[in-house]
């Protein structure tokens, strides 16, 4: 064995330490330079046998209540150092308590377990789409509602989650509509609007933002805004969350009117929802976009009439340059519903409009998002946001498209939306203003937001107007303004 140098073997009485602690001392001292073997252990028969095996047996008898300190080292200096280290280690006191280690919460289930309040709980989930379902399932199982912000959630997951939520008496909001305002708390992309009597159920994020901001501009507040997800009124999902949200709002004492906002719904689902709405005690007005429905601004105006509130002059700023002869419409939208609305309003006057989310399939754009003639692009479409932030946060995609249009030489009128509020770009005008100035084209902006938003509607509007854009709080007004420019240029 390893005992060619010098040795120290002693037995100490009246000293006891836990075997784990002693093994630790042995290991630490054994790691010192010049130390060849260490055994610090209570002198049990087993440990004496181990010591003997190491050539470090004590002379004479030992009893299990004695502490055996046995060290072998290369020379006297190393030996003395090692024995001193044993003494120091035995004398050292472990700190009784350390700072409590925080164990991270890895799942929504663990997060909900850690809540101690007795109020309603809500999970906001923005993990990658394929993983969202497990997190959302945790919430439903714990009796919490869910806002699924994630992109790329398979529709069968959405259906399964919404069925489970219905059975559990909770609500699944989203996916593909990251907007909600619950009891004044803005979740995901949402604006700072005043509280009031109108409940909004929205299968459209930016559509919900448009109507809530227009209501705010008219002095009318929102009780709750429930974003049910862009696919909720599709055939596949069948309005599962819309139906539950209507029932919730009907039972809510703060809600006196309900406005239902959506892109064009599946007809059978629209009928089912209309029938369910008819059974409620709270009046429900629909703002579902379609070729033969009023635009969102008109729907808000009708609701104001229901409430006996005068329709205000919708806020606007600035004036843009006249369009060149033969100019075409180039719409670049971050909000899918706002893009739809623009196309629905423009198509009767302009004819075919190419788009990545076109009104008719044959008008579908290629992947480069450019084509001559009238064009409206939804930059927030799922296919474009895979692996990158939403264009309401990241302007890159829009700035690239803008430059392409400006350098093509095709005479055009630009139609853009800028959506303010929580979660959105903190200063969208900062990047858009130089781009509009550089493009040198007439630009009309639908600026969706409120004065109370972190970005401030007027601050952003003034900056955009100073760059030569015409700015409208209403997307319908902005679209008509752009159409007027095109008409005047004919």
């Amino acid at each position, binding site marked *: 064995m390893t005992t060619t140098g010098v040795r120290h073997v002693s037995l100490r009485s009246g000293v006891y330490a836990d075997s784990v602690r002693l093994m630790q001392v042995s290991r630490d001292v054994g790691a010192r330079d010049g130390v060849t073997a260490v055994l610090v252990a209570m002198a049990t028969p087993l440990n004496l046998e181990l010591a003997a095996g190491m050539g470090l047996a004590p002379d004479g008898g030992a009893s299990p209540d004695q502490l055996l300190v046995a060290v072998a080292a290369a020379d006297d200096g190393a030996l003395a150092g090692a024995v001193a280290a044993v003494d120091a280690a035995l004398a050292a006191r472990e700190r009784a308590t350390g700072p409590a280690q925080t164990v991270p919460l890895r799942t929504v289930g663990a997060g909900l377990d850690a809540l101690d309040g007795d109020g309603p709980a809500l999970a*906001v989930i923005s993990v990658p789409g394929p993983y969202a379902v497990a997190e959302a399932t945790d919430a439903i199982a714990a009796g919490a509602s869910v806002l699924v912000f994630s992109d790329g959630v398979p529709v069968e997951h959405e259906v399964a989650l919404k069925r489970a939520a219905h059975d559990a008496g*909770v609500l699944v909001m989203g996916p593909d509509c990251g907007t909600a305002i619950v009891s004044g708390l803005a979740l995901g992309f949402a604006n700072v609007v005043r509280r009031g009597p109108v409940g909004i159920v929205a299968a459209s994020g930016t559509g919900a933002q448009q109507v809530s901001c227009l209501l705010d501009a008219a002095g009318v507040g929102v009780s709750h805004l429930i974003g049910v997800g862009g696919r909720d009124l599709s055939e596949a999902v069948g309005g599962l969350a819309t139906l539950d949200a209507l029932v*919730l709002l009907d039972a809510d004492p703060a809600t006196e009117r309900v406005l239902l906002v959506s892109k064009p719904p599946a007809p059978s689902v629209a009928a089912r929802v209309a029938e369910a709405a008819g059974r409620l005690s709270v009046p429900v007005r629909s703002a579902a976009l379609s070729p033969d429905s009023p635009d969102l601004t008109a729907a808000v105006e009708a609701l104001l009439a229901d409430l006996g509130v005068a329709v205000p002059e919708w806020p606007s700023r600035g004036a843009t340059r006249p369009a060149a002869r033969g100019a075409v419409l180039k719409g670049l939208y971050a909000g899918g519903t706002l893009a739809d609305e623009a196309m629905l309003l423009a198509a009767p006057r302009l004819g075919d409009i190419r788009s990545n989310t076109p009104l008719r399939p044959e008008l579908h754009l290629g992947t480069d998002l450019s084509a001559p003639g009238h064009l409206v692009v939804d930059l927030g479409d799922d296919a474009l946001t895979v692996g990158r932030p939403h264009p309401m946060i990241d302007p890159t995609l829009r700035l690239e498209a803008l430059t392409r249009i400006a350098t093509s030489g095709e005479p055009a009128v630009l139609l853009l939306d800028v959506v303010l509020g929580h979660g959105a770009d903190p200063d969208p005008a900062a990047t858009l203003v130089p781009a509009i100035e550089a493009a040198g084209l007439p630009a009309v902006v639908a600026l969706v937001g409120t004065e109370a938003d972190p970005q401030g509607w007027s601050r952003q509007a003034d900056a955009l107007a100073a760059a030569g854009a015409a700015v409208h709080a209403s997307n319908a007004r902005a679209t008509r303004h752009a159409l007027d420019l095109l008409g005047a240029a004919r």
Partner: protein
Amino acid sequence: MTLLDSPPAVVAAGVDVFSAALRAQGADVHDVDWRPPPSADPADLAALALDRRRAAANRTAVERVMAAGSHLVDVRPARDVLGLPDRTLLHAGPPIGWADASGPLRGALVGACLFEGWASTAEEAERLLASGGVALDPCHHHSAVGPMAGVTSPSMWLWCLQDPVGGGRAHCNLNEGLGKVLRMGAFGEEVLDRLRWMRDVLGPVLQAAVRSMPEPLDVRAVLAQMLQMGDEGHNRNRAGSLMTLRELSPAVVAVDAPSSDVAAVLRFIGGNEHFFLNLGMPTAKLAMDAVGHVPGSTMVTVMSRNGTEFGIRTAGTGDRWFTGPANTPVGLYLGDFGPDDANPDIGDSAIMETYGVGGFCMAAAPAIVRFVGGSVPDALATTERMYQLTLAENPAMQVPVLGFRGAPTGIDVLAVARTGWLPQINTGMAGRVAGTGQVGAGLVQPPRECFDAALAALAREARAAA
């Protein structure tokens, strides 16, 4: 209370810009430190998350674990109680043959052949084993568990425990003590002498004592008390062993046997601080066996190792094993043994963690965490992490320092996949070379592979049931 009654408390997982916005509005926001699961297929996670059977199945599994009790009802030779035929040896972990057996398992198998008289030398025993002349089968296939190598031969005496609720039975051999012992792979003459004494004296005395007790020993109650006294029931069994000695002593001294034998029995029990482990393990086994096959449940019912592979079973997949290569424990070594001397993880004793004690109750026995240079806060953090891997808290197994919170119980394969964390196991370390015996003790985790395989199988069943 519906969502719209008052501003909700929010738990946020994912992009932090949204929780920042909520916080700016003065909301009560709790961030989840979500990470992409390291290896599981997201489609499998989704299939399990959406399995409509899962919640009820896991509830059933948990109820069965909690309900199971454990009474010590008898002590009998394996030959009689398990119907173990001659030339059959049980071992720890998932199924394995001699060719793949590690050093300590081989050493224990050789020792058992010598002990049974099937061979007269180690070489002869090895030839017998290599030729397939002895049938090998996992303890877990016979309502039994064995620590470390877990080798159980027909002449060895077993603790017989019964679940007074469901009537299940579980068995475990008698603990030999520390150092050079069969379960650590040692098979020298002193090992065989001790086994003979255990067969000829200890077993019969314990049988007579246990059979004479007016009430069966409630082993689950002893385990619960240990947690209050600084043991975690796997690597520390001091309090449990002493309580067992206290409970058995009156009956042992009343056995009609020479007083020298009675004294030897009491001295043996009193000198072996792991004596209780072999009662704790079948107690955990009873509870996990009570779960049985529960289609749709993602609960782990067995974790076990044979020194080569780590294997698990789940309630949803019944008796199937899912295996991966066993890791080598990290810890402290006896004498001048070091990391090179340690064998990969071995033993059925991870049934303690499967039941929710051992490494899962690290907070109850902070001394254990020092095996890897940790501190008391580390011990607390380990148990806190295990709560996120498990389906329930066992009110019968309380952790005083956590405000008497119940032990984290019922490992959830889905939670293991989602958190990226693995179960924490406290364990002994056997020498890599057959015949060495114990070289240390420490901490180990299962290989992720066996949980991935179980998850994939559970997901397949979930899809088939949808």
